[in-house]
């Protein structure tokens, strides 16, 4: 990304109170990282329950009850959005031009679109499934995509420190 494009936005993030705290308190960064990691386990664990049910691997899980993990996933996502923002504010000039960060953000947007497709396109029909009943193929594709995209998000996130030059 071109420096002049992101510089104004990056300066704004850098000047925030949160950014200052992240740089000044030595324990803030590791604490936020740990919360970010705990957040991803709640998010990914919830997705495993829902998506594995839809894919058919855990098809004796009650579909309606599995959907109760959706709020867990959403809360975990919000926790990670906030802790992620904290990292960004700490050092925006490091993150904006980082190729792994850009891919990670791109994948999260795609995961969001995929989730909306799941909610508006499949959710109602899936809730009617009996225990052990196979989900429609479309829904299985969405579920498999969801897991694959989030694995990609985790990998690109972990790569961020290693693709700097």
């Amino acid at each position, binding site marked *: 990304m071109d420096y002049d494009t992101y510089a104004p936005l990056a300066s704004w993030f850098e000047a925030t109170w949160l950014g200052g705290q992240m740089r000044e308190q030595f324990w803030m960064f590791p604490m936020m990282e740990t919360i970010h990691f705990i957040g991803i386990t709640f998010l990914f664990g919830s997705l495993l329950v829902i998506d594995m049910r839809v894919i058919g691997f855990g098809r004796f899980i009650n579909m309606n009850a599995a959907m109760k*993990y959706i709020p*867990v996933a959403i809360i975990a996502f919000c926790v990670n959005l906030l802790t992620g923002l904290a990292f960004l504010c700490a050092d925006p000039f490091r993150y904006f031009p980082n190729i792994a960060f850009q891919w990670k953000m791109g994948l999260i947007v795609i995961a969001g679109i995929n989730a909306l497709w799941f909610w508006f396109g499949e959710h109602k029909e899936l809730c009617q499934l009996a225990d052990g009943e196979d989900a429609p193929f479309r829904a299985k594709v969405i579920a498999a995509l969801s897991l694959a995209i989030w694995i990609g998000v985790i990998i690109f996130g972990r790569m961020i420190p290693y693709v700097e030059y």
Partner: protein
Amino acid sequence: MGFLVWLEEGALGIFIRESLWGYPIVLSSHAVGMAIVMGVVIALNLRVLGYAKDISILAFDKLFLIGWIGFIINLISGLILFCNTPTTYFFQGSFILKIASIVLGGILMKVVMNSVRGDTSEGLTKLASFACIACWFGAMITGRLMAYL
């Protein structure tokens, strides 16, 4: 100590320290494995603690298998990462605590599953479940601290 030095100077140690992409790739696998193991552990314990009660806990068995896959990914990637500097890690307090938390967390997971299948009182089962989550959180916290201490 001799073994640790041998490990550090061996092929795996050299690979993980010197190859350009070796370390980030193995570390990323470790993060993916972590999300799988801890994801299953947390989803399952949430259910044991009373969330989403309509799911039969026994229906989670298949998910448990996926948790094991994640565990194996992390055992292998963890051993490779350990070869980076075994002579340091082995004596690092946060590393020792991390391994202890994982062992205890694993045993507690087994205790929770046995309680669910047997006729242990609900209170005791939930207590074990709570302790299990605490151990796995502990493993994550100490694991992250390894990079700082």
